């Protein structure tokens, strides 16, 4: 059979972000694929060197709009370690609360996108409608739906009073009921399972050798989660399960993410129920003493790593960001091999690509 090469992107209905593929197909099956990223490369690592540490908090939040709080958490954590600051427990809890709310919003967003790509527009609409509850909570807490500007170097900028805690808990109850409904639909809907089972498979060996992280790795059996294995912020106070699956296909990734959302709701409740009193931030000087730090955090898509080096001024000498999607992109050629062209959007959605993160 003849081979045909089909270019897809950077503008394509199946792609939410600019990324370009060259798919070589034989009939309906993909034989090879090549990837071109860099459409969203803004040269952030150079931009960071031209801004002060405080200005960089604003820039770092805009590496990615979906996991913005994870980026500022990892960055602020790193700078705070260089400054040798003790962050007040209330600040750590509020920081963690936003981390988990962001995880819920990111996973619900992803669920809607996956459902739209397999043709299940109803779940897209329901998931994004239910996601509005999380965005309302984040807006009530911080003033922003998508970019929250909660983290500052030294702690957080926001506080919650008892009334806000009660309102948030009530909304979390409503959210949990909606997520249970979505979970019920996903578990029983045979067409969704037929479209996602055995598609985009990655074995645990492939995941290990490509250093894949996050829900994609956990769906292939890797039991790794930085929140449990290298706790940061207030995660050492929380009781939660790390969700893993064995099948390694898009279905497993769906189940891992939706069940993680349920765990995150529980974690938010624990944080709100036991918020310690105290200040919201430790005073931080603008000049950071010379040193280097490697800061890690578990973003919704996996391990986010920041390396920051200071020469003693008020601007960083080097900020290196390694985002979780970068490694998953490298596995796409393995995942797409042998897949039908109709399943390409499913595979691409299944890995929850965030090209803005990967390109920086």
């Amino acid at each position, binding site marked *: 059979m003849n081979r045909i090469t089909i270019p897809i992107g950077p503008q394509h*209905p199946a792609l*939410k*972000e*600019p990324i370009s593929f060259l798919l070589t197909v034989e009939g309906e099956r993909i034989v090879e694929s090549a990837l071109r990223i860099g*459409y969203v490369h803004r040269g952030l690592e150079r931009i960071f060197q031209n801004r002060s540490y405080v200005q960089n908090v604003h820039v770092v939040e805009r590496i990615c709009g*979906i996991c913005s709080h994870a980026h500022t958490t990892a960055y602020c954590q790193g700078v705070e370690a260089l400054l040798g600051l003790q962050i007040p427990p209330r600040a750590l809890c509020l920081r963690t609360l936003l981390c988990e709310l962001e995880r819920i919003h990111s996973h619900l967003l992803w669920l809607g996108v996956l459902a739209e790509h397999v043709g299940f527009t109803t779940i897209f609409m329901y998931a994004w409608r239910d996601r*509005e509850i999380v965005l309302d909570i984040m807006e009530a807490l911080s003033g922003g739906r*998508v970019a929250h500007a909660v983290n500052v170097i030294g702690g957080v900028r926001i506080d919650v009073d008892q009334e806000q805690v009660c309102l948030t808990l009530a909304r979390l109850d409503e959210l949990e009921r909606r997520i249970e409904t979505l979970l019920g639909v996903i578990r029983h809907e045979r067409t969704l399972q037929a479209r996602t089972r055995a598609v985009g498979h990655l074995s645990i060996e492939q995941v290990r050798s490509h250093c894949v992280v996050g829900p994609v790795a956990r769906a292939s059996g890797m039991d790794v989660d930085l929140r449990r294995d290298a706790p940061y912020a207030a995660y050492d106070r929380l009781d939660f399960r790390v969700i893993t699956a064995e099948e390694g296909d898009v279905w497993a990734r769906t189940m891992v993410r939706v069940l993680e959302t349920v765990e995150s709701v529980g974690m938010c409740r624990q944080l709100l129920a036991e918020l310690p009193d105290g200040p919201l931030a430790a005073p931080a000087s603008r000049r950071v003493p010379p040193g280097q730090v490697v800061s890690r955090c578990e973003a919704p898509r996996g391990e986010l790593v920041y390396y920051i080096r200071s020469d003693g001024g008020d601007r960083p000498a080097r900020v290196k960001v390694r985002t979780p999607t970068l490694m998953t992109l490298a596995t796409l050629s393995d995942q797409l091999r042998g897949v039908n062209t109709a399943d390409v959007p499913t595979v691409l959605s299944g890995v929850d690509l*965030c090209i803005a993160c990967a390109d920086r």
Partner: protein
Amino acid sequence: MLRIIHCITSRIVRWARRKSPWVLHFNSGGCNGCDIEIVDTLTPRYDVERLGILKEASPRHADVLLCTGPVTRQSRDRLRRIYEQMPAPRWVVAIGSCSCSGGVFRDGYNVLGGIDQVLPVDVYVPGCPCRPEAIIEGLVLLLEMVE
């Protein structure tokens, strides 16, 4: 007689354009914040479909190009090509501070600036990211211009 027919058909065409602006969304280098707020406008809370707005897949079916993000070097030619593929009359809405001016990335070595460096922009909707309400207001402003 012909003039009357032409007048009536022009009015109908203008009415149809105002009542069903089909949009194409392209991210030329943004962080996704504005993109998810654009997709949010399609979802039940904001529901722009009641204004006749449909998100189209191909530039050839679209009337309005919603651009987010600053223009990066790699995206520049693709953005121009997408605009050229759209049939006239076509409009461009720059959504978000980055597409208005380059935003926080304006001095990046790979960033050329806002969308107006490459395309003629009709409506600027600032915000970082823009709220869905602002996006809808921008689209309504565009529809008033179309009249």
